[in-house]
């Protein structure tokens, strides 16, 4: 190989630079710990079970908004325990989850997603 003395150190340097975030985190001892979420104080269960909500709450909320706005249906019947809930982000979700900041936002920040629900929907604790 011509110029091996330049190419090989070049490749090594390149690999070091692109893997910088990995070994920097390892070296600094900060592992990417999952966020600590504050669970509701006054409620023990959600409209569906935790596993489903963790994975699919966005699809659930999407179907809620279509049901309420487009079909005029406002009551959701839980598939887990058959209980009835009003399909409302502000009233039902935030009715139990006292702090949006310490629940929704913490996890969304960790996952680097930016849903825009709250640009219109109102968090009652945020109104002056």
């Amino acid at each position: 190989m011509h110029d091996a003395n330049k190419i090989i150190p070049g490749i090594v340097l390149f690999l070091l630079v692109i893997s910088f975030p990995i070994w920097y985190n390892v070296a600094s001892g900060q592992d990417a710990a999952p966020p600590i979420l504050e669970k509701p104080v006054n409620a023990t269960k959600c409209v569906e079970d935790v596993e489903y909500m963790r994975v699919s709450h966005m699809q659930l909320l999407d179907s809620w908004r279509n049901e309420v706005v487009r079909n005029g249906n406002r009551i959701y019947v839980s598939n887990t325990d058959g209980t009835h809930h009003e399909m409302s982000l502000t009233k039902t979700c935030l009715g139990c989850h006292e702090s949006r900041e310490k629940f929704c936002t913490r996890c969304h920040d960790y996952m680097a997603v930016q849903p825009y629900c709250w640009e219109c929907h109102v968090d009652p604790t945020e109104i002056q």
Partner: protein
Amino acid sequence: MDYDRRRFIQIAGLTTAVGITGSQNADSANETESTESHAVAQKAAGGGPQWAMVVNLKKCRKDKGCKACSMACNQTHNIPSTENPRHEIKWIWTEPYEETFPSQENHFAPDSLQHKQIPVLCNHCENPPCVRVCPTKATWKREDGIVMMDWHRCIGCRYCIAACPYGSRSFNWEDPRNSLKSITPDFPTRTKGVVEKCTFCEEKVAKGEKPACVSACPEGALVFGNLNDPNSEVRQLLRNNFSIRRKPGLGTQPKIYYLV
């Protein structure tokens, strides 16, 4: 084949006769079909309520400075008040008589009507032009006649604003939260870049309540009800009083009726 003049006329006559009866049959079939589709339309309309509003101008005190209806609406639906008239958001507001009913222009109209401030809102047309032009179906007509909006789906193209002959639609040029003094948490605000308008308080109607403006009117000048129920208050008012609608010549069939 021997084909004389007499035979030709016989065949020609027969063919014409068959042709005429055939087309008559087709006509009557069409007729049955249109009666059927009318029946279907009536059934669909009769299956549920058709919401409408009667505005009794003899009772309305808008020109004496009453703002009860618009204030109740603004508060219920988190409608911002902005100082820039070009950025104004309006669900129910007032227009002078001449501009509300341009086809009724009359220099010698009664003093009680001349220059009177008339409450105006979305007409929830039976044939809504805004719905026809919306490219995303963010606005559509529900089975109960309410012309509804899905703010999730509005892309802010403003075709509906151009299409509406009543100026009933407003565009959020700025974030409405910046100019809201207080927020009612039960109803979402809107965001910059979407169109909004009166929804006939469908969230209240769903609970069997009256729209906010109707409940707020101190004079009972606004009456909300079901056009499909012959005994409803709106039907009784329309039966016993002369009513006019805004720009009826456009064929939009408004469902806001004014008693003058």
